[in-house]
């Protein structure tokens, strides 16, 4: 028996900047995880991922688990927590742009 589907978001890195991006409900790539589309359906997730992987301006699109939070999707694994925040040794990355601060 296959495992039940857990909610997911589609994430990737932007081709030019290299930074972390997420696919939103409107199909636009956004910089903040809480603005991403949380997908509850396996077939829809696969279909959206296939489309995302065809986008030439993004690199390495994949599905990752996320939980429904007060202001939008939240990470369930520490790797995704670091990706949405930035490194812990300097205040660089998303934590300085505010993409993380709105959560």
């Amino acid at each position: 028996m296959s495992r039940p589907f857990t909610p997911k978001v589609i994430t990737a890195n932007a081709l030019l900047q290299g930074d972390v991006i997420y696919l939103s409900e409107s199909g636009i790539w956004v910089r903040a995880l809480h603005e991403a589309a949380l997908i509850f359906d396996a077939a829809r997730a696969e279909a959206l991922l296939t489309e995302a992987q065809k986008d030439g301006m993004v690199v390495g699109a994949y599905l990752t688990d996320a939980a429904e939070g007060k202001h939008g999707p939240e990470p369930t694994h520490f790797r995704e927590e670091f990706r949405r925040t930035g490194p812990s040794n300097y205040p660089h990355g998303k934590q300085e742009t505010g993409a993380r601060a709105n959560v």
Partner: protein
Amino acid sequence: MYKYNDFDESFVRNRVAQFSAQVARRIDGSLSEEEFRPLRLMNGLYLQLHAYMLRVAIPYGTLNPDQMDQLAHIAETYDRGYGHFTTRQNIQYNWPKLPDVPAILSDLADVEMHAIQTSGNTIRNVTADHFAGAAADEVADPRPVAELIRQWSTDHPEFQFLPRKFKVAVTGAAADRAVVRAHDIGLVLKRQDGVLGAEIIVGGGLGRTPMVGKTLKEFVTFDDLLPYLEATVSVWNLLGRRDNKYKARIKITVHEHGIDDIRARVEDRFAAIKPTFGGVDMEMLREIEGHFVPPIFADKPVDAYTRAYEADPVFRAWADTNLAAHKAEGYAIVTVSLKKPGQTPGDATAEQMRALAQIARDYAHDELRISHEQNVILPHVHKSNLPALHAALKAFDLASANVGLVSDIIACPGMDYCALATARSIPVAQGIATRFEELKLEHDIGALKIKISGCINACGHHHVGHIGILGLDRAGVENYQITLGGDGTEDMVIGDRTGPGFAYDEIVPAIERILLSYLDLRDGPEETFLATYRRLGLAPFKAALYPAKEEKANAA
């Protein structure tokens, strides 16, 4: 140091032009990511967690001040104002943007540098003893041989699609400061009956299957060295496992076939290819050797040094830890620590890089080195200049007196940057260094090498740390395994795992328990941590690490 000739210059410029066109074709959509990825990796450009990362080679760790200035310029112009020096004598920029990379490579070419073969299944940047050309115990300067290997391996047509990456390190001294036994090929330069040659060690490596390199041949004269290396890589290129990337490195090939079988194959191949070299390799080596003439060492008194040493305790503490014996009378080798407690190991700001360049011009015969231990070396400093040099370092926060001590930690970028990482390394290093700074125990503990990797690939050399720390993902939580008793020198030993790992907030206290028990257990202040571990073994440290369990076992 080596100066590019017309061939080197046009090769590097052509590569910049070629890669610039590839970047443009990727951006306009003519190249897919699948097509572009191997091309960018051939030029040192990775895509990491938060951004691209450009890995620039510092061949055998040698830099001149103009090159250091240019690294600072790149950090400021295209990145976040700093660079990260790595365990393979590279510098990594953590925040470049794809459209800027061609300009960065062009700026590097302006100072005879590049990022070629810093990734991919090729022969990587050749590393060397960071005290090369200066160490008192040196038989020969390893850099001419390392440069010869760099030229031979760069764009070598037979070796662009190897089974896996291939790393070479060279040392010219019996005391191994280049971890040659943890490389695919390690060379130890030797003199026999007045003739220079090298011991060839093969099949060392860390990663998921750590192995100590084995001697392939005790002594190969320089005349035979390059054909012998080519024969070795060539044998592995055909024999190495391409079906399983975890079994592709030459250490596995040597392990599976046995060193005697590999040696016989290499000897056969060597006999076949040696005549094709025709002596051109030795002509090139002689020409390269001309670039590595030692500076003219001054013969002058060292009174200024002696006075400062006696009068200034801060200078004395720094001199006691950060200086090493130089081959020339009145000179010292200076290690500039990039490990100020709380700092990211191996990081230098653009301002610090420029300061180091100027200090090298003022006091160190225009030479700088980067060590695999992520520090900067000024190899030739007359002792009379040390007080002024120390003052200049202090002004740029570069005067930490901790080389070879508990806070002089090697740490890979870990999950703060690296896409392969399974846990963070940098904050663990920061936590340990800061904690022992608070405890004021660093000098009491004495010689100690802590090495931290954020994944099993072991860029942080944790297997050969006196204390090694490996960060893993255990059921979605960062978990750190400890190994003890590792040694990366000529007596290389892989450390022993202590037992179950520790959570992120438990790892610094765990290291503290190990070191406090060492202070109790040692025979006296002169017995180092490693010597104590070798005398007593794992048991007393295990008892300190896992106290509750030991008590339970005793009660049972």
